[in-house]
């Protein structure tokens, strides 16, 4: 027999929800609706002449081979960034969770990069790896390796993946650490007494118990790489060389901002939104089954 508290009145719950609903409406639904509307228009940059063109922006986009290339680039980039930043953050969190001297200092340092703005992070990495002036680049070159992200797509991709990963590790680290600290010590101690080695303890106890955290971070990281990385790409490679690092979100950003092509850019936003909603749905439908709450 479950006890439930039932409040009278219809007004209070809605009144309590109202601020949150307003924020969501004003800052999400309203701009999203505007984007959808904008994607049916062709406009000059100043908004002086507007033509309603139905789906022309979309057909133009899907007739453009560069758009598919940009999708492929996005897949490679997102897979690498999400994979690396989750794996490295988990490794660091496990190490920081141990009983060591100065653990709190390590934790603080690991969380710091999250406070760095994407564009600044991009510039930092650019300075280190800039072929002629960068310290790291000079070290690589002195080893006889021709490091040149300005012309070599793979080098450029390496650079943006490193910068975007570094930026995201802190966030993931924070959640993993919290997840680890909520795992009861007694379970792990019992396993240790039974003679399970650290690696086995990790994979059979810790990792499964962390799965809700891991799943949450997977969803958040996918959203991050799809939406939040254009600042980093803009600051490091500008999508180059020869479109080698042009992801969907960067293409959208440069078409809208530099090209003044608001209709095409809005159409790309809508497609990106659908893609990410789809990806998130898939994750909740199939990946979440493996999660043990």
């Amino acid at each position, binding site marked *: 027999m479950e006890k439930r508290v039932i409040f009278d009145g219809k007004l209070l719950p809605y009144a309590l929800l109202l601020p949150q609903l307003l924020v969501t409406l004003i800052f999400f639904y309203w701009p999203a609706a505007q984007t959808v509307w904008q994607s049916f228009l062709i406009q*000059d940059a100043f908004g002086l002449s507007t033509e309603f063109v139905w789906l022309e922006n979309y057909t133009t986009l899907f007739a453009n081979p560069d758009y598919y290339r940009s999708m492929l680039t996005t897949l490679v980039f997102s897979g690498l960034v999400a994979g690396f930043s989750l794996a490295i953050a988990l490794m660091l969190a496990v190490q920081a969770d141990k009983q060591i001297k100065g653990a709190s200092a390590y934790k603080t340092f690991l969380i710091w990069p999250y406070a760095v703005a994407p564009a600044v992070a991009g510039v930092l990495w650019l300075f280190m790896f800039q072929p*002629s*002036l960068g310290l790291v680049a000079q070290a690589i070159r002195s080893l006889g390796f021709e490091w040149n992200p300005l*012309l070599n797509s793979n080098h450029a991709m390496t650079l943006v993946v490193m910068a975007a990963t570094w930026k995201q590790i802190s966030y993931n680290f924070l959640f993993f650490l919290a997840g680890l600290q909520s795992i009861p010590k007694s379970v792990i101690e019992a396993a240790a007494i039974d003679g399970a080695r650290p690696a086995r303890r990790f994979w059979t106890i810790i990792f499964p118990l962390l799965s809700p955290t891991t799943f949450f971070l997977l969803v958040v990281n996918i959203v991050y790489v799809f939406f939040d990385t254009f600042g980093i790409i803009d600051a490091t490679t500008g*999508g*180059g060389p*020869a*479109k080698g690092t042009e992801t969907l979100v960067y293409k959208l950003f440069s078409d809208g901002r530099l090209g*003044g092509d608001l209709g095409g850019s809005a159409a790309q936003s809508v497609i990106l939104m659908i893609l990410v909603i789809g990806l998130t749905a898939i994750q909740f439908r199939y990946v979440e089954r493996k999660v043990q709450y």
Partner: protein
Amino acid sequence: MFDRRIVIAAVAAMTLSAVPAAAQTEIQWWHAMTGANNDVVVKLAEEFNASQREFRVVPTYKGSYPDTMNAGIAAFRANNAPHILQVFEVGTATMMAARGAIKPVYQLMAEANEPFDPKAYLPAVAGYYSTSRGEMLSFPFNSSSSVMWYNKDAFRRAGLNPDQPPKTWPDLFEAAKRLRAAGFDKCGFSSAWITWLNLEQFSVWHNVPLASRANGIDGFDTELRFNSPLHVRHLQNLVELQRDNTFSYSGRTNTGEGRFTSGECPIMLTSSGFYGNVRANAKFEWANAPMPYYPDVAGAPQNSTLGGASLWVMGGKSAAEYRGVARFLTFLSSVERQAKLHTDSGYLPITTAAYEQVKASGFYRANPYLETPILELTNKPPTENSRGLRLGNMVQMRDVWAEEMEAALNGQKTAQAALDAAVSRGNVMLRQFERTVSR
């Protein structure tokens, strides 16, 4: 502790500045000038404000050139555009096409009864910002051109004559090879602004079209023309020289200019506006010279065209405000002010009178490097192919061209295929632009 007198003085100053001077009309001026050039902007505004009581110019820094332009466009859409917007030269076509958004300068000056003679400006400067009928639409503010900077000490080290810089591309390639052999093995020569130097200025300097319809000046139905044998030959040369670092790519913008001042690249093709930076940071003896040309091209070298930016007056303001803007532009065009702007910042003097005055003062004997871009601009009377460039969507189009040049330089495409792709992709963008403006 603070000195009480200072506190009192500060409070007094605040109170005084908070009292509005007899109903001054404010003129908003958005710009993209940083560092020393920002100081120049602030000083100009202060001088103008001190020179009269009716108007007050308020300069605001809005970020890089593209950022400033976007800020102006966004502000116009929200009905609070500034009175004056500084737009870089590649934004010219976009601004010109926005007929309802701008107030043409020639019209502004006529309506405000301010003296204004487009013929007073250097033809290369006036031509860039005027319609084909000679109506000046924006006010040239900071103009530069592209030159070849070279490291004299490096020349000596390679056994080259530091007072005889290479005049032609073949000479430059030869010099770069010798520099490479003399220890500059990472970079014999390089170029900032890869498309501006190697497509845009390259076409103008050789008197070949970058695009039809006088590079877009005569109409929006312009088509790109830079996949000619001459253009392909030049890119092909760069691709071949890139293999052993005789030429070394430095990126799409001017972020690679530091390779010259650090001594890594002994020759750097870039803007004449690089002057201040070189003067401050180069630890070697340096000089600049006109851009190289291919000697077998008839009529080369022709004349160069502008870089830098001009001031656009935004539409929809009151007559009183426009009077103020016109007064300010007149103030900016005075010969003394132009001459001083030129000698302070290294940007070009834009009126013939200012140039003559600086020349007569003997300034160029001590600073020959500030005259190089002017000599390039005025080398010959402008032709169809060298009046200027006016292509819509140019900001993004440059990225598209650079992408294709990169594809050639890293071996993904041949020079011909890369330029063909750059032309056809650029044409698509030009047609889209034409569609939004011709309605």
